[in-house]
């Protein structure tokens, strides 16, 4: 899951990027409203974490600009202001959820997962397909009830495929979802991960759509 983080505070930004990274998200962090505003169009983000007290351009203005431009990515707003009018203003401006500082990292992650899930029209917290089930909170996958040994990237790829059931995912999109800005990747990184997943889950689990990308196989 690729997340756009816009947070001006160095320490919170650093912590969220590292922490959400540990929890299985790919995070791109921008410190200024203006940079963040443009960044949303530059990669296929699953959700946005937006700090309201941004210098240069207020978080609310960024949010309003996105919504005016028709962007529908779920936005989780972070703010130090907890008064009701402030919260209502945030939600009215198009925020999908709201967290008041200081927040728990785990809660940020949980709310992001919920936002993303809702966006994909899925209400249950577990993903499953053809005997494979994935728990995005614990970041554990099982095959017919047996725990699977998967690397972080393999888990992310599995999560992505399960969340996009019925759609064909282009290779570039998978690349962008799995890797944040400035992360090294080989040209055939996606193929390598797909190869490993197939080895562990069975070759029919992932279907190749030639010239386009990948999708889940028949269950």
């Amino acid at each position, binding site marked *: 899951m690729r997340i756009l983080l816009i947070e001006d505070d160095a320490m919170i930004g650093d*912590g969220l990027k*590292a922490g959400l990274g540990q929890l299985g998200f790919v995070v791109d962090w921008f410190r200024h409203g203006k940079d963040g505003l443009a960044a949303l169009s530059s990669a296929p983000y699953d959700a946005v974490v937006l700090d309201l007290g941004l*210098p240069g351009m207020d978080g609310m203005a960024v949010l309003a600009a996105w919504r005016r431009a028709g962007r529908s990515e779920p936005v989780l707003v972070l703010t130090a202001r907890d008064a009701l009018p402030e919260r209502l203003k945030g939600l009215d401006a198009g925020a999908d959820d709201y967290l008041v*500082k200081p927040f728990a990292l785990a809660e940020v992650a949980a709310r992001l997962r919920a936002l993303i899930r809702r966006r994909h029209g899925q209400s249950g917290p577990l993903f499953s397909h053809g005997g494979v089930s994935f728990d995005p909170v614990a970041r554990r996958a099982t095959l017919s009830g047996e725990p699977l040994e998967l690397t972080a990237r393999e888990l992310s790829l599995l999560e992505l495929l399960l969340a996009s059931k019925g759609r064909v995912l282009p290779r570039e999109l998978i690349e962008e979802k799995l890797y944040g800005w400035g992360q090294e990747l080989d040209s055939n990184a996606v193929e390598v991960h797909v190869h490993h997943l197939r080895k562990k889950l069975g070759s029919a689990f992932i279907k190749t759509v030639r010239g386009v990308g990948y999708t889940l196989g028949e269950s």
Partner: protein
Amino acid sequence: MAVPSLRGRLIRMIMLVVPLVWLVATGLSGYAAWHEVNELYDGQQQLFAQQLLNSAPTITHPAAPYEHGEEGEVDGMALAVWDAGGQLLLSDGEGLILNPHPGLSGFLTLDTGDKRWRVFYLSNRAYSVAVAQELEERWEVVRGLIAAQWLPWLVLVPVLLLLLWRGVALGLRPLERVRDELQHHPLDAPTPLSREVPAELRPLIDGMNGLIARVAEMLARERRFTADAAHELRTPLAALRVQAEVAQLSTETAAREHALAQLTLGVDRATRLIDQLLALSRLDPLQTPANAALLHWQAIAERALAEVRHTAAGRAITVELRQTCPYAEVLPLRGDDTLVGLLLRNLLDNAVRYSPDGATVTLELAADHVAVRDTGPGIAPEWLERVRERFFRPPGQNQPGSGLGLSIVERVAELHGLALQLENRTEGGLIARLVRA
């Protein structure tokens, strides 16, 4: 000491003044009455004497001589008629022996030891008459007149006092209303008290309204400050919490150590914010520096430099002192060394914080100003004014800060009658200058 009571004072005044006025009025009216009564009775005496003289020829037999000790009618009147030879023809009265004064016409006062008489003599060629009246008679009338005047006074004074008592209570009722209004007046509402009071109370009400406005303003400011402070504390707390969680989650040593280092920095940052908040909250209510004495610039500068050099050394920043006059002549000012030290430290701290590694920060002491120069990026012109606002930090900062440093500087400067000027230097960097306001 007894609480002075308006009502008591008024009543005492009335009790003192009313008898005094009363006395004077009585004296004056007594005097006037005495005159009137004299005039009246004198006229009567003259008239009576004339009639007596006219009817003297009808007296046929000589009168019996006076019988001493015999009490006649007590009417306070006496009369006597003589013929030209001084022979008493008629006498009546009170045991008074009137001597004939043939040929005399006019008034005499006769003193018989226990009584005083007013006697009118009137004579013609054949007869002479005397009509006398006891003066006591006249006094009686005057006393009666005065008594008649006193009576209404005696009745009216208690009534007057009672009315006054009620009147004062009535007059003071607006005060009770003001008291009620004050009792229920919310401290933070700047709504003034009603000015629908007697004119005498207006100055009091106006004074209180001024106080109410100031208290409400101060409370609003305090509340805003507390709210701002609480919100500002949320950010470092959020940073601490996130970094702590990252440290717990991290499986790699490097990541954990990074998070722990961030955690330490975060604690420092929160500590600094709290220090700054405390400094500001202590500065806020001051009207003048608490301990005002002639500033010791040497001691202040040396201490501030020593403290900031410690941090500067870590980044190879040189902090130098430039003096254009002896210490004794530097911006002569009465003030608080500690506060001015805090001011200098904040300015130097900012300068070091935003200077590139290896740069030079200069503290300049001159006769007409004190300044801190740095060679950092300066402040974008659009933020130059706003940086003084509490908690405001220009965008694009990598340095942690509370956004309170310049507010503290400005507040201390204000207390000392100084103005803070912020300027970007043409050669790069910022100059923060303190001059007399």
